[in-house]
């Protein structure tokens, strides 16, 4: 988990107070809708067909059980008792009243959650691999770099009103679990031939009406230069991106029209002018951010404990679930467990307040109180002892059939639910 500091807490609290005043002035008629719309879009508030929607960022997809319970409370108190986990590590409440928004935001702020830059033409929530920090195949924990970028672009005055929204993802694993190439800007941590760790920089990816895979414009970028390079990409986009046509405003169109090589030259020129300035990263500053990521006090355990092997051999349903939903952890004796939020016939990513509370309880009991949200709209328990897997599965089996969530009651049903990361990925592409 990342531990917010006083700066973050103050920033979020001040934003809630500011938004409360803006909502009050809108409701009193002091602000017109044209004036208010700009303000609400800085705070993740949309007006959709039937109601207001509040989008809350879950930076790098990491939540504590305390935060999860607060999301459930907000869903119950201010919405219709459910939330929707999105493909970009956010959660949305779709039926919230304008007059309730300040109170809901204040509740969320108490646990460090907010909707800043989850809408509008700003740099959106920086996302990463939902297995970050626990996956055995990653170079290092990409969340540290996602946090470095998040801190830099949060309320950055130059990038608050860009041509269009801007989505950044960071990955560090051999297997891409962060959907890097469908992002406006993607940073892939890897080790080069000399043994140094740095970033491959990709730009111009996206889905929607004009899908593109991002192109690599910098095969290897040193860690020191990551902020200056991100800044250079944003500046080039901010300068040349189209503002006359919303359908052609994303960076993917600019990269496509200009060509990746020409775009890279523009970025390089901008970058060379700023790379040795204030944005050159001090390793001590990065280390300070890294130190705020807390890992559980892992026990010294061995892989494949006897009780797990026995349970797999004795129970085919458990073995099926284990094969579908459990992945290797970087620490021996631990596992990563994926919980599907794609029950048959339900909207992918939807979870009721009761389900969210149940997951928070399971996280406390089996995963050191931590939950992850992935772009596949599933939840993850990232620190489960392998010896606890059977007990966890039994707990899920009890909750599943009654809640319509995470059903594991039969092999046939397990095969229809996106219980495994692989199945979840294939479904996610269709959604």
């Amino acid at each position, binding site marked *: 988990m990342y531990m917010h500091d006083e700066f973050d807490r103050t920033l979020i609290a001040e934003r809630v107070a500011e938004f409360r005043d803006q909502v009050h002035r*809108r*409701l009193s*008629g002091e602000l*017109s*809708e044209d004036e208010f719309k700009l303000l609400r879009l800085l705070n993740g508030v949309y*007006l*959709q*067909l*039937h*109601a*207001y929607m509040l989008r809350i960022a879950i930076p790098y997809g990491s939540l504590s059980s305390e935060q999860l319970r607060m999301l459930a409370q907000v869903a119950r108190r201010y919405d*219709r*008792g*459910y939330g929707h986990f999105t493909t970009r590590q956010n959660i949305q409440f779709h039926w919230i*009243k*304008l*007059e309730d928004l300040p109170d809901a935001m204040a509740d969320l702020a108490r646990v460090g959650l907010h909707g800043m830059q989850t809408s509008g033409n700003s740099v959106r929530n920086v996302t990463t691999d939902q297995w970050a920090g626990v996956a055995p195949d990653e170079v290092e924990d990409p969340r540290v770099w996602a946090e470095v970028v998040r801190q830099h672009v949060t309320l950055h005055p130059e990038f608050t009103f860009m041509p269009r929204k801007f989505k950044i993802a960071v990955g560090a694993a051999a297997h891409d679990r962060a959907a890097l190439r469908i992002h406006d800007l993607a940073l892939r941590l890897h080790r080069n031939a000399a043994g140094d760790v740095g970033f491959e920089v990709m730009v111009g990816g996206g889905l929607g009406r004009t899908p593109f895979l991002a192109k690599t414009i910098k095969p290897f970028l040193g860690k020191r230069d990551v902020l200056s390079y991100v800044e250079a990409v944003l500046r080039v986009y901010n300068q040349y991106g189209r503002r006359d046509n919303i359908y052609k405003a994303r960076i993917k169109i600019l990269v496509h029209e200009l060509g990746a090589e020409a775009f890279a030259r523009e970025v390089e020129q901008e970058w060379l002018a700023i790379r040795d300035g204030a944005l050159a990263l001090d390793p001590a500053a990065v280390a300070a951010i890294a130190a705020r990521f807390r890992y559980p006090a892992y026990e010294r355990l061995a892989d494949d404990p006897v009780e797990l092997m026995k349970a797999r051999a004795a129970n085919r349903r458990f073995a099926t679930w284990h094969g579908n939903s459990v992945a290797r952890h970087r620490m021996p004796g631990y596992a990563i467990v994926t919980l599907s939020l794609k029950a048959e*016939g*339900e*909207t992918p990513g*939807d*979870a*009721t307040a009761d389900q969210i509370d149940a997951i928070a309880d399971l996280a406390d009991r089996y995963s050191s109180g931590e939950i992850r949200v992935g772009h596949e709209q599933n939840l993850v328990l990232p620190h489960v002892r392998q010896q606890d897997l059977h007990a966890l599965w039994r707990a899920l089996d009890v909750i599943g059939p009654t809640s319509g969530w995470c059903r594991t009651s039969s092999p046939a049903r397990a095969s229809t639910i996106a219980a495994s990361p692989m199945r979840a990925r294939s479904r996610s592409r269709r959604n």
Partner: protein
Amino acid sequence: MTSPLQQKMKVTGPVVVTANRLADGAVIYRTSDGRWTTELAAAAVVTRSEAATALLAGARADLRIVDCYVAPVELGAAGPRPGNLRERIRAAGPTIRLPGEAEAGKLHVYA
């Protein structure tokens, strides 16, 4: 030359004036006595440009609403029905079943 603001609204059939309610975003319709209703059946239906312009002007003066516009309707025995898919969905609610609900929205009512 006529400015765009003075251009006459083109109305070729029955229309209503609709918006979202400021407080909660609910879909609402303008009534003939200058109030708002969530029931399309109770909305004021006009068929001429001048009447639609007047209805819209009165609605837009109300600060408690958002995104006000003229929407087409069809007239049936049971009153006005939405005139296009967007308005059908707005009137009937979500097309998917929400968590905790027994069934999807009422789209079939207008289908």
